[in-house]
C-alpha cells in the first residue's frame, strides 16, 4: 500500500509549500483539494469532481486516503467563517473513514453559521475558544505574554512552546506548541471539558487510529515542572493534543505563507513536529524515514578573554573535552555520527592560538592546556576511526583569513605545505593557463610544452603558458583563488594537516564530507577539486563565497553528483558576539545570549525580573530548546541539510565542575552564579526524545544517510 494523504486548502496564495516538500521527502503521496470558501456551503474541488462538504460522495472520496489534513489556520478567533465546511467530517467516524488531522483548528465560538453549530459534535470535549471570554475558554500559554508579531508565522526566531508530556509514550519533549492564538498574539492551549472527556474515554471505539480502543484520548499536555523554581504550571484540564474518535486535534504545524519551497527558498518552519506526529498517529506509514544528525564546527578552539567568566585555556579545553566525550558516547549509543569540522590552517598559515594545531603545539598556550587539547585531538581521532566523531577539514585561512574557499580574488601571502603533489618545493600552476582550448577543437602543435588537461564539471580544456602563473619553489606567495589549481593546493594542504594531526583522512572517513569554513564552498573549481580528493559533498551557503559574493551554489544543490548541503546553525549567540553569556544574561552584548539571539524575550517576559523570578530561567530554557529542536527538525525534514553548533562558543555558561549536568535552573549554577546549561547535551537529549516519539518518521543517522536520501528524493 502506498501512503497517501489528502490536503484541503482554501487557496494557493496562502498555501505553504513546506507541506508538500515534507511529504515528498517522506515518500508520501498527496492530493490537493480546494475549498471554494470557508463556509459550510463551500464546495470541495477534488481531482475526481466537485463535492458538497457534507456529501456521501466526498466521504467516499476521502476513504481512499490514510489521512485528510486541514491546512488552513488563522490567528483571529473573531472570524465567523474559516474552515466551517470541515465540521461535517468530525462525524465521519466509521472504521472505513480516514483519520482527520486538524492543526491549529479554527472552531471558535464566534462562528455564527447554524449549519456549523448544529453539526458540531455535542460530545466534543474541548471547549470552543470564545474571543469575548478568552480567559474562560483557553489557557494563555508560555508565560501568557504576547509576541511582538504573529506567532503563527514565526520562522527561525521568536519561538513559543512548552515542554510537552506525551501520555501514551510517557516522554517529555520540548516542541514549538501553539494550539490557537488570537489578534493579541498570545499563544493559547486548550481547555478540556472533563465530563465529556470522561465519557469518551470510557466509551469503546473501533478505528485503526484508536490505539487504546476508546473514543477519546488525551495525547499530550504541558509537562509538569521538574523543579519547584519553575512555577509556570497549567491546570489539570489543560491539553495540547487530543484524539476525538478518528479526529486529531493538534497544535499549529505550518505557517500560512506564499513562500515557495525549494532547497534554497524556504523560511524556517519550526512547528513541523506536530505534522510528523500527526501523520504517525494517523497511521500514515512513510516510504522513507528521515535521518537525524548533528554537526559541530571547530571542535578545538578557544578565546583569549572570556569575561565575565574569565576561563583559562585549561578550563576551556576541559569543558570541550567533556562535551566531545559525551557526544562520542551518545553517537555510540544512538548509532549516529557527529560530524566535526576541524579548524585547520594553523600548521602553515597562522600562529593564532585559536586554531586546532596551535592549541596542541604552540608554546603560547599553557602546557597543561595543551595537554588537554591533545586529549581532545586523541578523542576525535578515536571517534573518527570508530565512526562516532568523523572529522573533516574546515579552513578559515584559505581566503584572506576571513573564512572558507574563494573569499577574494587573491589570498596574499598564502603559505602552503611541503611535499605531496602541490606542496613546496614543487613548481605547480597556481592559476589557469593563459591559453585554454577544448581538446576537440585544439589544432595539433598549437599547445605549449607545459600544456595540461583540466576538467571542471563537464568542461575539459587544455591549458598552457603558465608564465607568471606558477608557484615556483617557494612555500609562500600570493595565491589567485578562483581556479582549480589553487583549489587543489589548498585542499591538499588541509588534508596534509589532518594527516599530521593523526587523522587517516580529511573527509570524515567513509562519509567523504566536511562542513566548509563559513559555509563558503567556493564554486565549481573547488567542488571539482574536492571531488578529486574523494569528497562526496560539503555543507554550503547558497551564496557560497561570501563575503567575496561572486558565486552561487547550483540550483538544486547537486553539482555533477556533488552535494552542497544546506547549513542551519543554532549557537546560543551570534558570531559577532564571540561566545555566549547565558540563556539570558543582563549584561550581555547584542546577540550575546540565546534569548537575544533568537528573539525569545516576548514582551520582556524574560529580561524583566530575571534576577528576582527564578521561573524565568526555566522559561528561557524551554523557548531555547523549542526553537532549537524546531529548527533542527526543519533541517531534517525540509531542506535535508546540516544542523550545526560550535561547542566551544557555547561552553562558557557551563559549570566547569559538572559540565555535563542537565539544566536545573538556579539550582545548578555556573562560575558567575547564573544557571548552568550545556548546549550539546540538551540539544541531543531533547532531539532523542523527539526521535523516540517518532520512530516511524525519524532515526538517528549520519550525513551519508542524508546525502543518500537527497539523491533518493531529488531525482535527476
Amino acid at each position, binding site marked *: 500500500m502506498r501512503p497517501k494523504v489528502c490536503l484541503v486548502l482554501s487557496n494557493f496564495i496562502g498555501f505553504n509549500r513546506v507541506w508538500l516538500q515534507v511529504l515528498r521527502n517522506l515518500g508520501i503521496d498527496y492530493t490537493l483539494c480546494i475549498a471554494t470558501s470557508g463556509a459550510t456551503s463551500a464546495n470541495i474541488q477534488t481531482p475526481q469532481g466537485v463535492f458538497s462538504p457534507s456529501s456521501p460522495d466526498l466521504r467516499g472520496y476521502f476513504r481512499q486516503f490514510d489521512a485528510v489534513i486541514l491546512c488552513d489556520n488563522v490567528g483571529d478567533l473573531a472570524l465567523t467563517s474559516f474552515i466551517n465546511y470541515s465540521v461535517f467530517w468530525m462525524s465521519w467516524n466509521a472504521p472505513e473513514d480516514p483519520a482527520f488531522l486538524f492543526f491549529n483548528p479554527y472552531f471558535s465560538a464566534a462562528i455564527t453559521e447554524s449549519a456549523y453549530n448544529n453539526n458540531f459534535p455535542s460530545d466534543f470535549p474541548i471547549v470552543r475558544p470564545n474571543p469575548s471570554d478568552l480567559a474562560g475558554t483557553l489557557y494563555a500559554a508560555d508565560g501568557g505574554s504576547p509576541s511582538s508579531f504573529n506567532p503563527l508565522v514565526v520562522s527561525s526566531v521568536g519561538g513559543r512552546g512548552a515542554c510537552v508530556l506525551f501520555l501514551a509514550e510517557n516522554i517529555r519533549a520540548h516542541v514549538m506548541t501553539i494550539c490557537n492564538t488570537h489578534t493579541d498574539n498570545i499563544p493559547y492551549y486548550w481547555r478540556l471539558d472533563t465530563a465529556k472527556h470522561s465519557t469518551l474515554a470510557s466509551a469503546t471505539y473501533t478505528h485503526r487510529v484508536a490505539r487504546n480502543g476508546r473514543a477519546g484520548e488525551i495525547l499530550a499536555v504541558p509537562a509538569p515542572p521538574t523543579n519547584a523554581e519553575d512555577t509556570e504550571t497549567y491546570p489539570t484540564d489543560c491539553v495540547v493534543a487530543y484524539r476525538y474518535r478518528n479526529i486529531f486535534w493538534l497544535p499549529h504545524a505550518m505557517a500560512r505563507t506564499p513562500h515557495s519551497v525549494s532547497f534554497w527558498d524556504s523560511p524556517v518552519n519550526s512547528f513541523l513536529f506536530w505534522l510528523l506526529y500527526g501523520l504517525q498517529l494517523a497511521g500514515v506509514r512513510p516510504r522513507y524515514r528521515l535521518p537525524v544528525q548533528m554537526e559541530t564546527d571547530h571542535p578545538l578552539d578557544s578565546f583569549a578573554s572570556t569575561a565575565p567568566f574569565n576561563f583559562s585555556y585549561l578550563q576551556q579545553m576541559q569543558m570541550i573535552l567533556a562535551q566531545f566525550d559525551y557526544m562520542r558516547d551518545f553517537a555510540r549509543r544512538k548509532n549516529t555520527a557527529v560530524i566535526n569540522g576541524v579548524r585547520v590552517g594553523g600548521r602553515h598559515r597562522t600562529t593564532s592560538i585559536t586554531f586546532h594545531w596551535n592549541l596542541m603545539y604552540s608554546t603560547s598556550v599553557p602546557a597543561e592546556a595543551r595537554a588537554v587539547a591533545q586529549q581532545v585531538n586523541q578523542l576525535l581521532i578515536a571517534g573518527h576511526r570508530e565512526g562516532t566523531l568523523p572529522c573533516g577539514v574546515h579552513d578559515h585561512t584559505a581566503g584572506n583569513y576571513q573564512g572558507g574557499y574563494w573569499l577574494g580574488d587573491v589570498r596574499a601571502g598564502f603559505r602552503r605545505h611541503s611535499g605531496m603533489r602541490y606542496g613546496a618545493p614543487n613548481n605547480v600552476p597556481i592559476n589557469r593557463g593563459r591559453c585554454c582550448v577544448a581538446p576537440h577543437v585544439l589544432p595539433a602543435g598549437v599547445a605549449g610544452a607545459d600544456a595540461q588537461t583540466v576538467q571542471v564539471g563537464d568542461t575539459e580544456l587544455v591549458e598552457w603558458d603558465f608564465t607568471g602563473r606558477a608557484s615556483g619553489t617557494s612555500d609562500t606567495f600570493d595565491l589567485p583563488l578562483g581556479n582549480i589549481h589553487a583549489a587543489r593546493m589548498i585542499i591538499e594542504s588541509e588534508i596534509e594537516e589532518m594527516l599530521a594531526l593523526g587523522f587517516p583522512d580529511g573527509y570524515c572517513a567513509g562519509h567523504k564530507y566536511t562542513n566548509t569554513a563559513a559555509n563558503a564552498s567556493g564554486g565549481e573549481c573547488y567542488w571539482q577539486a574536492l571531488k578529486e580528493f574523494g569528497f562526496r559533498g560539503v555543507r554550503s551557503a547558497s551564496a557560497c563565497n561570501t563575503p567575496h559574493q561572486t*558565486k552561487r551554489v*547550483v540550483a538544486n544543490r547537486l553539482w555533477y553528483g556533488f552535494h552542497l548541503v544546506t547549513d542551519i546553525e543554532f549557537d546560543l549567540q551570534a558570531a559577532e558576539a564571540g561566545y555566549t553569556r547565558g540563556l539570558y544574561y543582563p549584561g550581555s552584548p547584542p546577540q550575546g545570549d540565546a534569548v537575544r539571539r533568537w528573539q525569545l524575550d516576548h514582551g520582556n517576559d524574560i529580561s524583566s525580573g530575571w534576577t528576582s523570578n527564578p521561573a524565568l530561567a526555566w522559561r528561557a530554557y524551554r523557548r531555547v530548546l523549542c526553537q532549537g529542536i524546531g529548527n533542527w527538525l526543519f533541517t531534517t525534514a525540509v531542506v535535508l541539510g546540516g544542523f550545526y553548533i560550535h561547542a566551544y562558543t557555547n561552553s562558557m555558561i557551563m559549570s566547569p565542575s559538572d559540565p555535563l549536568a542537565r539544566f536545573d535552573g538556579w539550582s545548578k549554577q555556573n562560575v558567575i552564579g547564573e544557571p548552568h546549561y550545556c548546549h550539546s547535551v540538551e540539544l541531543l537529549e531533547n532531539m532523542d526524545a523527539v526521535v523516540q516519539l517518532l520512530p516511524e518518521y525519524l532515526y538517528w543517522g549520519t550525513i551519508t544517510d542524508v546525502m543518500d536520501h537527497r539523491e533518493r528524493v531529488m531525482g535527476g
Partner: protein
Amino acid sequence: MPVRFLRNASELADVSWETPLPVQVANAKPVPADTLLVATTSVDTTANRDLLGSTSTELPTLDACGQYRKLVWFYFRTSDAATTYRVLARATDHNGAPLGAGWQEIVPATPLPGAANSWGRIEIPATTDGYYDQYRIEVQRTAGSNYNLISKIVGVR
C-alpha cells in the same frame, strides 16, 4: 586526477565528454528544460535587490547556466505596485570565475508587466540565445507598497 575506466578489456581511458562511463540507459527521455529557481521576493524600493533578496551587486542569482540557451522566468505578483526589473549576465571561465568585474546588462530597467494577483512570463534573453554562465535578475518597486513576487525560472537547453 581524472577518473579512469577499463575500455575494450585492455585500454584504460579517462572519463571525459568523448569517453563517458559505459552505462546502459533504459527508458531515458531527453529533458530539454530544468527548473532552476523557485523563490519568493519581497519587492521593495531597494535598488539592486535580486530575486533571492540579495543586494550584493556581484552576486549572481543563478550560476553555472552555460548549458542553457534561454531562461524562462514565470512569476506571480501579488500587487500591481509599479516595479522595474533588470537582467544582468556574464560569462565565466571553466573554473567558474567571472571573466571580469561587473555585468553585461541584457535587459535595462523595464516595467514588470502585470496587475495584482496576475501571472507573467519573460524570456531571457528576449530574442537571441543566452549561454551566459551567470545571471543576476533584480526587481525594484518604484511606487505603491511592498509585495511578494513569486518566481520560477526554467532553463531551456
